[in-house]
C-alpha cells in the first residue's frame, strides 16, 4: 500500500482538519473523529444548545438543540464528550423542524454538544461545559430500585400543541434505558423511534443510546399543516410501542 494513501486515511490527518475546540475538551478530537465521519466542522452561532445553569439531577439533564436558523439540516446530534456512552441522540428531521429537546445522563463534568449537519455535509456545532455529580450512567435506574420497570415497559404518552409556526409534539416512553454499566444489568434501551404522518411517511427518525435519561421524553416540531402523527418505538430487545395523535383543530 502506498504511504500517501495511508497518511490520508490516518486519524492524524482528520484531526488536523478539525477546528480548535472553544471548550478545550480533552476528548474533542477523539469524539469528533468517532462521531462526525470526517466531514468539515464549524462552530456556528446558528446552532443553539440550551441547558439549565446547573445539573440538579445527573440522571436527567435537560438539553435542547435548535438548528432552526440553518437551512437544509439533515441530522441533529446531542453528545457529551466525557460520558462513557457519548452520543445520546442522532435525529434525522426528515420532514420536521431541526429542533429537539430531551434529557440525558451525565457521568461526570463534561462538555455537552449539539451538532447539526447540513445537506452539504458540514457539521455546525455548539456546546458548553456542564458540572455534574458522578454516576448518571453507572447507577441503576430508579425504576429498577423501585422494582416496577416491567409493569410499564414501553408505555407511551404524548400530546400535540398547535401554533401558527409549528405543530409541537411532546412524548415520553417508560423504559429503564439500562446502560450496561451497572453490575448484572445488561444494556437494554430504546434505540429507534420514528415519527410518521397518518399516511406512513417518515417525518423524523431518532437513533438513541442508553445515555438518554430513563423514561425518555422528547419535544419535536413539525410544519403546522400536519394533521397528526404516529409514533413508533423499538427497544434493543425488540419490544415495540406505537401510538397516534391527531390535531384537534378549533
Amino acid at each position: 500500500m502506498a504511504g500517501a494513501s495511508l497518511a490520508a486515511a490516518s486519524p492524524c490527518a482528520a484531526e488536523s482538519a478539525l477546528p480548535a475546540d472553544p471548550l478545550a475538551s480533552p476528548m474533542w478530537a477523539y469524539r469528533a473523529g468517532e462521531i462526525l465521519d470526517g466531514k468539515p466542522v464549524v462552530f456556528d452561532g446558528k446552532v443553539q444548545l440550551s441547558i439549565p445553569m446547573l445539573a440538579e439531577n445527573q440522571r436527567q439533564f435537560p438539553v435542547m438543540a435548535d438548528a432552526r436558523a440553518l437551512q437544509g439540516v439533515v441530522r441533529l446530534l446531542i453528545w457529551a464528550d466525557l460520558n462513557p456512552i457519548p452520543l445520546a441522540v442522532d435525529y434525522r428531521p426528515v420532514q420536521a423542524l431541526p429542533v429537539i429537546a430531551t434529557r440525558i445522563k451525565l457521568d461526570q463534568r463534561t462538555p455537552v454538544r449539539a451538532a447539526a449537519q447540513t445537506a452539504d455535509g458540514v457539521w455546525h456545532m455548539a456546546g458548553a461545559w456542564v458540572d455534574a455529580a458522578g454516576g448518571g450512567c453507572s447507577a441503576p435506574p430508579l425504576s429498577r430500585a423501585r422494582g416496577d420497570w416491567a409493569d410499564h415497559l414501553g408505555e407511551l404518552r404524548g400530546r400535540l400543541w398547535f401554533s401558527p409556526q409549528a405543530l409541537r409534539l411532546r412524548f415520553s416512553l417508560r423504559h429503564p434505558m439500562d446502560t450496561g454499566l451497572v453490575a448484572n444489568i445488561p444494556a437494554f434501551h430504546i434505540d429507534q423511534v420514528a415519527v410518521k404522518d397518518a399516511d406512513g411517511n417518515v417525518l423524523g427518525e431518532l437513533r438513541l443510546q442508553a445515555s438518554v435519561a430513563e423514561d425518555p421524553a422528547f419535544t419535536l416540531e413539525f410544519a403546522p399543516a400536519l394533521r397528526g402523527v404516529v409514533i413508533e418505538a423499538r427497544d434493543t430487545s425488540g419490544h415495540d410501542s406505537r401510538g397516534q395523535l391527531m390535531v384537534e383543530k378549533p
Partner: protein
Amino acid sequence: MLGRRAFLAGAALALAQGKALAATSAPLPKAEQVGDGLWVVRGADEPIAWGNGGAIANSVILDAPAGAVLIDPGPSRLYGQALGRLAQRLCSKKVGMVLITHLHPDHAMGACAFDPAIVHALPQTRKDIGEQGSDFADALYRILAGAMQGTTVLTPQGDLAAGPLDAMGRGLQLYALNGHSAGDLVVLDEQTQALITGDLVFHNRAPATPHARIDQWQDSLSKLEAIPHRLLIPGHGPLDTGGEALAQTRDWLGWVQDSLQRAVDSGLDMVEAGALPIPDRFAPLRQARYEWQRSVAHFYAGLETQALPIL
C-alpha cells in the same frame, strides 16, 4: 468516596493529635445577638459552593441555664466545631444540646462534631438522615472537598415530638411539621418569642425544593402564621420582624406551583420552563433563577406524566 472520607477523617485525627491547628486557628463564624441569650449565625445566601464551605444555612445559639443549645450545626465537622467554640465564648458554657430541624446537609452534617447522645431531631428526620445521609456526604465532599475533612454522617436521636421541651433549662415549644421535607422541626423560644423555622421559611433567598411537597408546605405556613411570635429566624436569609418572610415564602411557592403547571400545560420543555421570566416582585430573592431551575428539575417529569395522556 468512602475511601476518601476515611482518608480525610484520618487526616483530621492526625491533626487533632498534633497541634489541633484546624480546630483552634480557623476564624469563628460571626454571631448576631437578636434577643436575650439568643444569637443567629447567618449562612451565606448562596448555593453550596467551594467559597462558602457549605455554610449557607442559618444556625441559632441559645444560652440555657445548664448549657448552650445549638440549632442546626451546619454542613461539616469543622463548622460544627467552630459553632461549638462560638457558643462557648458567648454563653461561657459547652453545647449541651443540638437540635436538627430537617435532613438537609447544610443544616445537619455538622452534628458529627458533637456527642451523638446530645443530638436530637424528629423521628422522621432520623429516618431521612439514616437513609440519605451518605448520599448527602458524597455530594458535599464532591463540591467542598477539604472543608468537609473529618465529616461523617451522624444519625440524630429521633426523640423529639411536638410540645414543650425543657432544653437545658430553657423553655422551648416544638412543632412537628412538613412540606419542605417529610419532617420539619420548628422551635419557639418562650423567653424571646423567637420562631426558629428551619427551611419552612426562607427570607430574601429563594426557597429550595429537593424534597418538597408544596401543598403540605403551604399548610405548614398557615400553621406558622397562627403561632404568635415577635421575631422569625428563617432557615436561610435575614431575620424578620414584620411577617414578610412567611408571606414571601408562600408567594414564591404558589408562583412555582402555578408556573410549573402552566409550563407543562402549554407544551414547554424543561429547558424552556427553566428560562421563563421570574416576576419583578421576586427581585429581592437571592438565587431565584437557580432555585427555579432546581424546582423544574424536581417536579417537571412528574407533572408531565399527568399532562401527557397514554396513547
